[in-house]
C-alpha cells in the first residue's frame, strides 16, 4: 500500500494524491446526496418528514461508524479496497432512488428495503474515509492528511446539502439525481484507476468501473421512463394517460385490449368486463320505467352508463352531472374512449353538466323518469356525502311518478354492512328499494340498489343486444346468498358519515 507515495515522494506523486483528495470530496458529496435522496423519498412515500429524515440520517451515520470500525480489519492493499468500495457506492447509491421508487409499490415492507440501502451506503462510506487517510499517510504528514481529508469531507457535505434542494431535486428529479451522482462516483474511481501507477494490477477494477458507469449512464438516460414505471408499477399495467385535475388524479392504463380507468388510484372500470357492470347498472332500472324519456346520470363521466341508457329507444334526453370537466372532456374527445362509450357524451340527446352532484341535486328542479347514480365508492368524507339520507331525499324529489333510481353500492360480498347501510339509508329517505348484485371479474361480486317512490314492477325490459344481461338472467340477480344477506346496518347521515367508516373498515379487513 506504500505504492502511491512512499516509493518516490516527488512531484510525480501529486496527480494521484490530488485524485485521491478529490475523491474524498466527491465521496462526501455523493454520500450525503444518497442520504438526502433516501430521506426525501421516505418522507414522500411514508409521510412524516421529521421522522423519516431523523431515522435515515441516524442510521446512515451509525452505519458509517460500523464501516469505520471495520476498516481496522483491512490489513492488505487498502488502495484496491478503496477503489472497490467506491465503485460499490457508485452502484448502490446511484441506483438507490430508482430502486426505492420502483420497489415501493411492489414490496410489503418498504422500510426494510429503505434501511438496507441506507445502511449499506453508510457502511461503505464509513469504510472509505479511514482507508483514504491510511493511503495518503504514506506520502504526507499525518497532521496534514487528517486535516485535508476531513476538510474535503465536510466541504463536500455542504456542497451536497446546498445543491440538493436548489438544483438537483427541482431540475433533475430524484431518480436522475441518484444516477448523476453514481456517475460522478464511478467516474472518480475510474480516473483514479487511470492515474494510479499500478495500472496492470487493477485491470479487473477498471473493467468493473466501466461496466458500472455504463449501467448508471443508461439509468440516467431512461430516468424519465422509470419515473413513469414507478407510477405504472402501482397500476400493474402501462399508464397511457395521467392527469391531475383540481379534484382527482385521472389515470388510464392499457395492456393489450384491456383499458382501465383509475380515479385517485381506485379502479373505475376495465374495458374487458365493464359491459357487465354497466348493463347491470342501467337496464334493471330503465327496464322498470314504463316510458323512460328523461334520464339523469349522476357521476359516470366516462359515458359508459350513458351508452347503455341510449339503448332504450324512447329516451329523449340525458342529463349527465359529473364534477370534473377533465373527465367528460377526455371521454368525449379521445378516439379510443369514444369508441368505448359509443360517443354517448356527444350524442345530441346528451347534456353534460360539470357540477358537484351534491350541490346540483339540492338546487335542481324538474323530474326524471330514471336516475342512474354512479359515484366512486365512499372512500372519503366528501364522497360519503353523496350516499347520505339527505342526498337521497333530493333524489327522491327529482324522481318523476313511476320513475326508478339505481345506486351503485360497492361489493355486498366484501363490504356487506356498507352495502346494507346504503339500502337502510335509501329506505330512511322514504324510498322503496330492491337490492341486487352481479359478478364483474375485475371488481368481484358487485352490488346495486333500485329505489323508487313505491313498489316497482317485478319484470324489466332488457335490450336484446346485451352481452351479459338477459331477461332470463336478470331476475336471478335479486337473490342474495347467506354470505351477502341483509344484516343490521345504520342510516348514513351527513353528521355521522357511518358509511365511510364502515366501508374503510370492511375493505381494510378484506385487503389486510
Amino acid at each position, binding site marked *: 500500500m506504500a505504492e502511491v507515495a512512499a516509493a518516490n515522494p516527488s512531484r510525480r506523486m501529486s496527480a494521484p494524491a*490530488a485524485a485521491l483528495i478529490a475523491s474524498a470530496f466527491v465521496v462526501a458529496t455523493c454520500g450525503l446526496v444518497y442520504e438526502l435522496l433516501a430521506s426525501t423519498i421516505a418522507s414522500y412515500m411514508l409521510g412524516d418528514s421529521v421522522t423519516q429524515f431523523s431515522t435515515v440520517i441516524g442510521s446512515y451515520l451509525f452505519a458509517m461508524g460500523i464501516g469505520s470500525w471495520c476498516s481496522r480489519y483491512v490489513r492488505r492493499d487498502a488502495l484496491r479496497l478503496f477503489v472497490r468500495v467506491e465503485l460499490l457506492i457508485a452502484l448502490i447509491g446511484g441506483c438507490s432512488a430508482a430502486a426505492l421508487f420502483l420497489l415501493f409499490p411492489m414490496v410489503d415492507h418498504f422500510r426494510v428495503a429503505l434501511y438496507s440501502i441506507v445502511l449499506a451506503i453508510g457502511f461503505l462510506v464509513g469504510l472509505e474515509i479511514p482507508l483514504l487517510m491510511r493511503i495518503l499517510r504514506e506520502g504526507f504528514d499525518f497532521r496534514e492528511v487528517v486535516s485535508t481529508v476531513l476538510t*474535503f469531507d465536510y466541504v463536500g457535505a455542504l456542497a451536497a446539502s446546498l445543491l440538493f434542494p436548489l438544483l438537483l431535486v427541482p431540475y433533475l428529479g430524484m431518480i436522475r439525481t441518484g444516477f448523476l451522482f453514481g456517475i460522478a462516483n464511478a467516474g472518480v474511481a475510474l480516473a483514479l484507476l487511470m492515474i494510479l501507477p499500478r495500472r496492470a494490477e487493477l485491470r479487473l477494477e477498471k473493467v468493473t468501473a466501466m461496466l458500472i458507469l455504463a449501467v448508471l449512464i443508461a439509468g440516467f438516460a431512461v430516468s424519465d421512463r422509470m419515473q413513469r414505471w414507478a407510477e405504472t408499477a402501482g397500476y400493474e399495467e402501462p399508464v397511457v394517460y395521467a392527469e391531475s385535475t383540481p379534484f382527482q388524479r385521472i389515470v388510464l392504463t392499457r395492456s393489450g385490449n384491456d383499458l382501465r380507468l383509475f380515479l385517485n388510484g381506485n379502479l373505475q372500470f376495465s374495458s374487458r368486463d365493464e359491459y357487465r357492470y354497466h348493463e347491470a347498472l342501467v337496464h334493471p332500472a330503465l327496464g322498470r320505467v314504463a316510458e323512460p324519456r328523461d334520464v339523469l346520470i349522476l357521476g359516470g363521466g366516462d359515458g359508459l352508463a350513458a351508452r347503455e341508457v341510449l339503448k332504450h329507444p324512447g329516451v329523449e334526453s340525458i342529463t349527465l352531472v359529473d364534477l370534473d370537466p377533465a373527465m367528460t372532456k377526455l371521454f368525449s374527445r379521445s378516439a379510443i374512449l369514444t369508441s368505448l362509450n359509443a360517443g354517448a357524451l356527444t350524442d345530441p340527446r346528451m347534456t353534460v353538466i360539470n357540477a358537484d*352532484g351534491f350541490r346540483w341535486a339540492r338546487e335542481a328542479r324538474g323530474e326524471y323518469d330514471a336516475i342512474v347514480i354512479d359515484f366512486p365508492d365512499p372512500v372519503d368524507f366528501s364522497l360519503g356525502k353523496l350516499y347520505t339520507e339527505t342526498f337521497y331525499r333530493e333524489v327522491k324529489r327529482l324522481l318523476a311518478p313511476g320513475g326508478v333510481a339505481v345506486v351503485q353500492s360497492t361489493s355486498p360480498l366484501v363490504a356487506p354492512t356498507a352495502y346494507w347501510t346504503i339500502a337502510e339509508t335509501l329506505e330512511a329517505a322514504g324510498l322503496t328499494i330492491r337490492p341486487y348484485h352481479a359478478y364483474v371479474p375485475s371488481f368481484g361480486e358487485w352490488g346495486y340498489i333500485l329505489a323508487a317512490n313505491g313498489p316497482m314492477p317485478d319484470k324489466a325490459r332488457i335490450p336484446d343486444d346485451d352481452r351479459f344481461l338477459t331477461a332470463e338472467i336478470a331476475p336471478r340477480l335479486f337473490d342474495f346468498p347467506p354470505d351477502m344477506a341483509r344484516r343490521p346496518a345504520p342510516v348514513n347521515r351527513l353528521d355521522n358519515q357511518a358509511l365511510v367508516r364502515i366501508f374503510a373498515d370492511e375493505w381494510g379487513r378484506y385487503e389486510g
Partner: protein
Amino acid sequence: MKARADPVRRALIGGIGATGIAAVGGIGWTLSSPMVPSGSMDGADVARGHRLRSGDFPAPAAIEEAEIVIAGGGIAGLAAGWTLAEAGFRDFRLLELEDGTGGNARSGRNDVSAFPLGAHYLPVPNREARAVRHLLRRLDIITGERDGAPLYDPYQLCADLQERLLWRGRWQEGLVPRSGLSARDSADLASFDRAMAEFTARVGSDGRPAFAIPIAYSSHDPELLALDGIGFTAWLDQRGWTSPVLRSHLRYCMRDDYGCEPQHVSAWAGIHYFAGRRGWAAEGAGENVLTWPEGNDRLARGMAAAFPDAISTDRIVHRVARDGDGIVVDSFDTAAGRTVRTIARAAILAMPHFIARRIAPEDVRRWDGLEYAPWLVANVTVDRLPTGRGAPLAWDNVSSTSESLGYVVATHQGPAARTAGTVLTWYMPLSRQAPAEARRLLLERPEEEWRRIVLDDLLAMNPDLEGAVRGIDLWRWGHAMARPTTGMVWGEARRAAETEPPLFLAHSDLSGLSLFEEAHYHGTRAAEAAMRHLGHAHETLL
C-alpha cells in the same frame, strides 16, 4: 513542501469554487423564497369607535321618533329587534355603528366561498334555551319534531368529520390527545371527564341545572356560585389534575371560548365550558353544532330579515339620556355628516358595556374589572384542500403545538361535496399579554408581519399547503369578547348590568361569556322588558 501542497491547493480551490457557486445559488434561492400572499386588513371600525371617545359631535340637526330605539346591531340588538317584530311591535329603530349589522357574527365572501369574520357556530341548544329554539324554528333550522325532540336540518348540522387534532406529527379525530399518553395523563383525563359529566348532570339546591345555557337558568346554589370566586387553574390544582396533556387541552378550550389563559378564567366559567352543554335534538344530533360557510352571520341575517326597514346603519350613537318619562338618543349619521336625535319611550343599549357606560354615563354603572380579549382572525384562501397524515380534513382543525386555535374550513358545510380550493378561517386570541398591551400589539404590528405569522403557523400544521395559499385577509378584533375572569360571572361587580326603565341593557357582556345564546338571551329579555314597560301585550319566549 511545495510539491505536496500543490494537490491540496488544487483540490481546495476546486472545493471552494464549488462551495461558492452553491452559496450564491443558496442566497439567491433564499431571497426568492415564497412571498407572503397579500390580502386585506380590516376590523371593527377603529376610527368610529375612537371618535366616540373624543365625544366630538355636532348638535342634532334632525329629529325622528320611535317607540323603542335599539342601539347596536350585533346579536343582542338583532335578537331584541327580532323579538319585537315577532310580538307584532313595529314602531322601533335599530341604529348600528358599522356599515352592516351582525357584530362579531359578520362574514365576508370571495370567489371561493363565504367565510366568517368571527363567531362561526352555534351548538345544538339545551332544553332550557327556549328563545333560541323558537328562533331556529322560525329560520327553518329546526324543521320539525321526531320522537318528541326537535329535528334539525341536516344541511345545517356540522357534517362529519367535525374535529381533528395534530398530535405528535399525526392528525387524530377529536380534540383530546389519545395516543402516547402516560398513565398519569390518562388517569387525569379520565378523572376530569368524569367530574365534568357529574357537573353536567348536577342539579343545584334550588332545583335548577348547575350549569345552564343561557347561564341565567343556572342554579344559584351558593356552593356552585362560590366556584366563580376562584381561578380555574387554582381549582384544577386543588383537585390534583396536573397532567400537562390535560392542562394544555384545557388551555386550548379556555382560549377558544373565552380568549383567556386558564389562570385568569373563573373556575365557574371554566367548568361551564364542559358542563353547560346538554344539547337536545332528535337523531342523536344533541352533541353536534350548527354551522354555515358564513358562520353565525346566517343567524344574524335571518334575524335582520324580519325587520329590514327598521335598521339604520352608519349611525354612531353618542348620547343616550332620559327626557321626562321618555328617552333621547343622539346618533351621528356618518353618511349625511349630521347628528340625528331619536325621541323614544324606551331604549335598549345592545353594545359592549364600556361603550354603553360612555354614552349613557348617568344610567349605566361602571363595571370594575371588566376587560376585553383581543383576537386576530385570518381568512386564508387556498387553491387546494389541506391534507395531512392520519385523520382526513375536518371542519375544525387544531394543532397541539400551535399558539393559534387552528382553522375551520368554510366549504366543509357545502354547498358542494367536493371543492378544489377553500377558505380557511384561522383564529388566534392574544391571551399571553395583558389585554391593553395585546390590543396595542394587534393594532401596531404591521399587517405584513401578521400575515407572515399566519402563513408560518398554517404551514407548520399543513406543509402540504406550500405554494397553495392565494391570499390572507386579516380581521382585527380589538375588543372581541368580555373576559370571564374570577368573580366576573356571579360577583358583586355584575350589579353594573342593572339599569332602570326605560333604559335596558342587552349584551353578552352581561353574562360574562361571549356566546350567541347569551347575547340572544339578553336581547330577547331586554325587548320583552321594554314591551312590558310600554304595556305591549306579548307572549314571553324566555
